């Protein structure tokens, strides 16, 4: 893979390192994502996936290396980078006490979307994810799938060039998953939006992604199309190729306070229903 920052690349990562004390979470990785590409970023738990995404989305400062997105540096021009992407986090990030429409509006204000554009774009997007009829309902009444759809609509409101999806289909049934990917593929085709996603469902990556990078122990150990990876490992499916590349040992992640909070949050949300 070449790492030169041509105009074709919407994301270029060079020599990216992240250390937490003595622990190196991301160990000198370089890769690029082409404009309009559907790119899957795969890896076992604790491989450095989330840390990389946090650096790409300006939530975490790299220890070394550079990231350029849409022509802007994530460290020197974080606001320009932030305007360039939309993100659907692994955990919900909606305000439960606001309605679907209000959540969209809130996002529009933060991204400085003009009022007349919002008036047109919010109904369009809510219809697109089939939530227009529920626009006035509080998000706390929404199911997991509805929330995820709303997050996608919200992530697209400010016309991002890239949409990040961190395990967007986790916990969704096959129908909703299928539906969601057809939205995203559609958007990718019509608006040319670059899709960067992570998933643990290998058949999903195989079916959807145009290009795949696999990270393990903080290093990118393989990249290419699904066929490339299968050929490289001489395996019939991406799942087998993935296991061949990353090994079959189960990874334990140490839970930090944040994870415990999420766990509590899930229990709390589950308990309220």
């Amino acid at each position: 893979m070449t790492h030169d920052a041509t105009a074709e690349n919407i994301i270029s990562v060079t020599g990216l390192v992240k250390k937490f004390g003595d622990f190196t979470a991301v160990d000198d990785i370089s890769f690029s994502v082409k404009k309009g590409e559907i790119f899957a970023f795969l890896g076992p738990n604790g491989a450095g996936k989330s840390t990389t995404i946090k650096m790409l989305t300006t939530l975490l400062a790299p220890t070394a290396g550079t990231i350029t997105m849409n022509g802007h540096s994530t460290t020197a021009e974080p606001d320009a980078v932030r305007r360039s992407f939309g993100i659907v986090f692994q955990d919900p990030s909606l305000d439960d006490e606001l309605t679907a429409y209000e959540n969209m509006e809130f996002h529009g204000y933060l991204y400085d979307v003009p009022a007349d554009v919002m008036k047109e774009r919010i109904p369009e997007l809510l219809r697109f994810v089939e939530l227009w009829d529920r626009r006035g309902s509080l998000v706390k009444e929404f199911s997991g799938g509805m929330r995820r759809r709303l997050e996608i609509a919200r992530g697209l409101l400010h016309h991002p060039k890239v949409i990040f999806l961190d395990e967007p289909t986790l916990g969704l049934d096959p129908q909703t998953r299928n539906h969601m990917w057809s939205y995203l593929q559609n958007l990718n085709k019509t608006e040319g939006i670059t899709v960067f996603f992570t998933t643990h469902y290998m058949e999903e990556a195989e079916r959807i992604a145009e290009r795949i990078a696999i990270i393990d122990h903080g290093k990118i150990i393989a990249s290419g199309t699904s066929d490339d990876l299968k050929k490289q490992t001489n395996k019939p499916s991406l799942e087998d190729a993935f296991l061949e590349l990353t090994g079959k040992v189960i990874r334990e992640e140490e839970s930090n306070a944040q994870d415990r909070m999420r766990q509590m949050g899930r229990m709390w949300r589950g308990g309220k229903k």
Partner: protein
Amino acid sequence: MPKTVCAKWAGCGAAAKNKNTDMKTVYIMWLRQIKRYLRSRSRIVGALGQPILFLVALGYGLGATFQKAGEGNYFTFLGPGIIGMSIIFTAIFSGIEIIWDRQFGFLKETLVAPVSRFSIMMGRTLGGATVATIQGIIVFLIVLIPGFRPFNWALVPVAILFMLLVALLFTALGTMIASLLEDMQGFQLIMNFIVMPLFFLSGALFPLEGLPAALSAITKFDPLTYGIDAFRTLLVNLPVIGIGPDLAVLATVTAVFLILGSYFFSKIQV
């Protein structure tokens, strides 16, 4: 399919920063706090329960003793204290709500947005302070029922401005604490070692004159003491410290807490 309305909006994609962005951020964060407040009726009622309990139990329970001790009508004395109580509790909890935002993921939505963390923190704090002030005004109306009367109605709006200042101070304190905590585990600690002492040592319930020297010194370090004194001065004309020093202390501490609060908030990692 969403059609592209991009052409209408020069700022499509990676837009140039508009000067109004910070104001818009402050406004929408403020509005969010207000909407959440107005929607949770149980929270409004719940937050009024405690001041009413104190008012009734202490007002009627200790009123006669207070009068006999030559201190005058206890409701007149207690009213400003109970108002201060509802403000400090609501304000600190509003600030601490950031922990919930963190837990329920909403904080991330604001932190990846192309806006300054300072404006996020300011909008939130102003929203929380507005809510706490509204609670204070509601409690003011409630204490009128057992016979509390301001000595000069013209000073009530000034008292409300002081309520806003006190609310701002404690919301900023709550924000500061919440930015330093990772989860709700420390909540009980905050209640017992910060909120309760601040409340009880402020002279909200008893006169500060004639306290043992050590205790009296401690009360001087409690910002709520100056808030309660300001309320008492403006509502019932019972000054101990004086409105000038009250304003100076409250304004200074608020400024310091806002600066520290936004500093710690800017350090939050999700």
